[in-house]
């Protein structure tokens, strides 16, 4: 959860100061801010459970690509504004379902973070969904761009629902939901928005994988981390 919000937050923050209109610039920066706040909570908890004295900052700035466990969707480049918003919508819809399930986690700290985050993400998905509809069912140009964004990003959706041994162990203890259990509700929500946006969902549900396990990230993550971690790499332990 923490790597997903960290990586996506950084991606979204890349728009700060250069978004198409002021309101969108502010909205993107706010979304990035919510996600980075959630990152501090998730990675803080992860470091605490690990018990090796690593805090959220250490986990964010002192790990390289192969140690990141975010889904490949989160690290995809921004592309144009439409592609950014399509990525956001596809992620937000899953994020909200996941957080709603985590509110009932048997781990009280996880449940508390989810309870806080669900309120913020409700606003995220409202905006990204509205924007996908507005641009998809917009001009010929915006429609084409949104369809292209959907076609490009759809192969990264499936990984959100892939279940491995860790997920099964978490689910057995009531800590987190089985990823597969969220798929039906996700499809229902996404299909409704795509229909309203006059966009066509790709036929194939082929899914790129390797982000969540850390086995094979896309080339984009390494480039992103060199920028995000530049200061700590050049001046370890720098503070001000």
């Amino acid at each position, binding site marked *: 959860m923490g790597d997903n919000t960290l990586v996506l937050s950084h991606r979204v923050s890349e728009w700060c100061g250069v978004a198409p209109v002021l309101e969108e610039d*502010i909205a993107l920066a*706010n979304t990035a801010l*919510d996600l*980075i*706040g959630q990152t*501090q909570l998730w990675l803080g908890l992860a470091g605490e459970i690990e018990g090796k004295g690593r805090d959220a900052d250490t986990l964010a700035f002192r790990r390289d690509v192969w140690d990141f466990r975010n889904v490949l969707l989160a690290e995809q480049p921004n592309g144009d504004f439409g592609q950014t918003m399509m990525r956001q919508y596809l992620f937000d819809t899953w994020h909200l379902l996941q957080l709603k399930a985590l509110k009932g986690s048997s781990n*009280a700290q996880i449940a508390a*973070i989810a309870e*806080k985050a669900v*309120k913020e993400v409700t606003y995220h998905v409202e905006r990204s969904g509205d924007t996908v509809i507005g641009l998809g069912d917009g001009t010929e140009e915006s429609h084409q761009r949104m369809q292209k964004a959907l076609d490009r990003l759809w192969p990264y959706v499936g990984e959100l629902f892939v279940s491995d041994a860790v997920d099964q162990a978490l689910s057995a203890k009531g800590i987190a939901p089985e990823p597969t259990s969220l798929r039906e509700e996700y499809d229902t929500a996404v299909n409704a928005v795509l229909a309203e946006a006059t966009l066509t969902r790709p036929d194939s549900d082929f899914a790129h994988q390797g982000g969540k396990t850390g086995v094979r990230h896309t080339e984009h993550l390494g480039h992103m981390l060199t920028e995000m971690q530049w200061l700590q790499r050049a001046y370890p332990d720098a503070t001000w």
Partner: protein
Amino acid sequence: MVEEKPTLETVWGWLDAVPDPEIPVISLTDLGIIRDVQWQGDTLEVTVTPTYSGCPATSIINLDIETALRAKGIEKLSLKRQLSPAWTTDWLSESGKAKLEDYGIAPPRPAGGPQHCPRCKSAKVERISQFGSTPCKAQWRCQSCLEPFDYFKCI
């Protein structure tokens, strides 16, 4: 150095005088983010809940609480963060809502939008964006006086 421990009521009174760093017309107690104040032995324990998890004011708020209480002679102080139950705009005090409106920020309403323009009171208002100058605010505009204004959004 205080001779005797001040009562909790006194401490709440002090906290009521600490302004929110982003919206200084309301106090931290108006905002409803001070969850609890307790004495643990001779240490004063103040429990604070964040409004939004990424709110940059959180660390300033903690600093302001510490500064205010130290100025009153509190030496042993512990600040705790509590996430659950998550902060909700329902905890804004009625006086806090009135002060917000006087300041030009429409207070939150369960209906999900402002009742009227905080300046001219016209009910003809429209939403510009759910995301505003801080995580807790949305941008709205009055269609009568044409002024844009902040709306403290409901969470």
